[in-house]
């Protein structure tokens, strides 16, 4: 079931919330277990037999956690390591076995059928075991099961930690309806839904012809290659940040505050800053569970650079079993290492406005180039697109306009078909350009939803925020009208359900 489907919005969600609070009147444990069960129903909607996986994961990891609490120091450490390896083994089996086999045998394999949410729950469970080992406290089973299975974050995060969500679940005052949270949660949910359905999905339409052509080995024009890369950057941002906001909104309906996952990343003026703002919960996990154990920045600049590249490459591999994801991770790792070296060399001198603008441009362009690896079907098509972006081996002008978006403008004489065929070829359009620039302007110039709403849970740092002053959200007639206007736009599209991009990871 998808957050943006009518059956979720109008049937599942109201039923799950009402059931949770009705049962909470009688017993907190019953409410937790019921929400666990409704979350598993939400999961099994996708492919019923696979529900065994989260169920077993919950049972086994809780048993391990309980054991760790009771064991002596050495045994507890061994059990934690065993738990981490066990969780990783399941992930590797489902997600990477075919890829590893293809490396060994040299035979190409198709995309593996990875159980939904496996990548995210694996990280949640690893963080849980480490937190339990550190604190020697495991909590109650009903609360833990709700923590893992809680449907707002189950499928695609944010990657929550037991130390931040566990205490909230344990707090009895959160089991009464709080209309402040309901009003705020519904508003954030609808803003996230609008990001997904009104911006990300239309951008995806423009992205597909460019990357599909590259997947067929066909060159595109330089403008089309750049258009595709920029549009996909926008699509991924609006899709995933929209999803994360919907998750936050849903959490608030249950009086639980999930952490922020996006902090206006397109406003970042360095790649280091960017990764503090993009998929914050993953960056945080990789920092705490990969980068720091590797030695972090404690062993000199060279080792720091190696650790950075290794950490982000692992982050890339986490997204999918393929060379394109490894290349994407390595690309960002190298950029981070260069950025750190630059920061050390330059010191803390305050940059001028021009330098800030250039830094922003370099950061954004570097990210968009990386997105080519992220979206491309395979390495040859990624390389082809990168060459086309550099103006090498680009496509010849198209003989006819195939995409339908510009036809309206051409027929009325607003657009030149000659120009479109020469510059954009058969895979990109003027309308796509306008949409992409518009979407990027929204991401860059307007405050994030969580800035409007003044939502600060799990904030990476506060420096990124822009003051919204009197425009900040409050339950007022103006905000109600604006939210209903967004709902109208979303509702018009509601039966065109499309999957979230991060569901594939």
């Amino acid at each position, binding site marked *: 079931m998808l957050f943006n489907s009518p059956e979720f919005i109008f049937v599942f969600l109201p039923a799950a919330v009402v059931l949770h609070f009705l049962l909470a009147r009688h017993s907190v444990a019953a409410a937790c277990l019921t929400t666990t069960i409704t979350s598993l129903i939400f999961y099994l909607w996708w492919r019923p037999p696979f529900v065994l996986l989260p169920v077993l994961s919950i049972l086994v990891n809780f048993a391990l956690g309980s054991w760790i609490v009771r064991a002596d120091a050495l045994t507890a450490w061994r059990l934690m390591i065993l738990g981490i390896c066990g969780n990783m083994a399941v992930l590797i089996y489902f997600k990477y076995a075919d890829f590893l086999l293809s490396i060994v045998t040299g035979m190409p394999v198709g995309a593996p059928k990875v159980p939904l949410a496996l990548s995210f729950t694996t990280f949640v469970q690893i963080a849980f075991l480490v937190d339990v080992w550190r604190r020697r406290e495991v909590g109650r089973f009903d609360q833990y099961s709700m923590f893992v299975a809680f449907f707002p974050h189950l499928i695609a995060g944010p990657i929550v930690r037991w130390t931040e969500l566990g205490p909230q679940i344990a707090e009895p005052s959160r089991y009464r309806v709080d209309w402040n949270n309901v009003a705020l949660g519904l508003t954030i949910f609808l803003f996230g839904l609008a990001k997904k359905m009104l911006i990300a999905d239309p951008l995806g339409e423009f992205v597909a012809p460019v990357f599909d052509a590259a997947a067929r080995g066909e060159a595109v024009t330089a403008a089309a290659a750049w258009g595709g890369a920029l549009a996909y950057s926008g699509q991924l941002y609006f899709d995933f940040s929209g999803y994360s906001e919907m998750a936050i909104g849903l959490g608030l309906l249950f009086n639980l505050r999930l952490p922020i996952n996006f902090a206006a990343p397109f406003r970042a003026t360095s790649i280091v800053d960017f990764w503090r703002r993009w998929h914050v919960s993953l960056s945080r996990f990789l920092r705490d569970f990969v980068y720091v154990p590797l030695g972090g920045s404690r062993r000199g600049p060279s080792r720091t650079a190696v650790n950075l590249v290794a950490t982000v490459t692992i982050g890339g591999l986490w997204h999918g079993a393929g060379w394109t994801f490894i290349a994407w991770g390595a690309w960002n790792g190298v950029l981070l290492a260069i950025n750190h070296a630059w920061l050390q060399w330059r010191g803390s001198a305050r940059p001028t406005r021009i330098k800030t603008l250039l830094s922003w441009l370099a950061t954004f362009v570097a990210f968009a180039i990386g997105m080519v690896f992220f979206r491309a079907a395979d390495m040859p098509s990624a390389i082809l697109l990168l060459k086309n972006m550099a103006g090498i081996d680009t496509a010849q002008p198209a*003989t006819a306009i195939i995409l339908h978006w510009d036809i309206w403008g051409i027929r009325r004489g607003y657009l030149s078909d000659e120009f479109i065929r020469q510059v954009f070829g058969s895979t990109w359009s003027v309308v796509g350009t306008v949409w992409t620039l518009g979407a990027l302007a929204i991401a860059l110039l307007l405050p994030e939803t969580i800035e409007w709403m003044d939502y600060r849970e799990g904030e990476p740092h506060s420096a990124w925020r822009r003051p919204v002053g009197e425009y900040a959200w409050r339950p007022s007639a*103006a905000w109600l009208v604006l939210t209903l206007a967004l709902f109208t736009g979303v509702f*018009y599209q509601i039966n065109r359900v499309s999957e979230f991009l991060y569901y594939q990871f």
Partner: protein
Amino acid sequence: MRLTPKFYALTLIAVCFISLAVVVAANVLIDPQRMFGLELFPNKRNENLRYAQYLAYRKVEPSIGGLMFASSRGSGIPLDVLSARTGGVRYADFTVGAGMITDHLPVLERAIRDKAARGERLKQVFLLLDVDLLGERPTTNRNPQTQLHPDLTGEDPVRFWVRYLTAIQFRAWRDDVRRASLPKGADLDEPVIVEPPLPRIRVATLGPLPLPIPKEPMRVTARPDYQRQLGLIRRFAELCREHGVNLTIATSPIHRITLSYVDINDLMAAVADVSGIAPLWDFGSPAWLSDRHDLWADHSHFTDEVGRMMIERIATGALPPGALQFGVRRPAAEPSATGR
């Protein structure tokens, strides 16, 4: 104006559910795709024929020995004549607006599987291909009226029905209601829909159609979906071969106006590609046929008379009276360079 959080939240929830209720009620009562069967507004233009034909087929499935697949151009093929010329086999009609191989293959797969489960087999399949439209983006499953039955797609039936309950289709609702108030036999002024490449049916929810603006004639074999559709035709032919089904593939005759949209040499290459998969009857674009206005409903759709001529040509080899050329049987041939 400041509101209480409770009022704010309840208003939001109420508006959401009222909107849903209105849309569901409109879809069930007006029923533009004829899915719910109330028939309060019987004169429809957006009926889901793909769904209706599949349901109709399932009702009489044991008595069916043949399947007829075509786009709206296939409405010129008289099934009674086809049946009479193929041993009296009873045909199920899968002629649908903008029908393409993406619509036909799932039906064939399902029909063969059902027959095989009962120890029976299909006898005849007639596939009318619009070679000039091959490789165009299919409309299959893109709109409420082109959605295939969940039996054919494996889609979750809940999702399938939710889509019909929640589709916001103002124009279709309005037109169906207005049609109901018209005198019998009258209809709304509707724009003439020009092919190629897409459907004769009015599509209220489709959005802009991908009409190409050719600077020079369109190359069929260069279309983005061309290779994939060839692959589906190959699968279609293989299925028939594997299950002993007598497959007849014919290309629909093309009027010279329609022909002017495409590169003729490239069209020939596309025909060669299809004949590389299975033998086919190529009805091309004979000049005498384009000259006979009485044989065309419009410059894309031929009449029943032409359909009869085609069946006679295929079954007996007879040419239409006075015609020197009509329909060439192309045996399985080497595909063109693009079709390999």
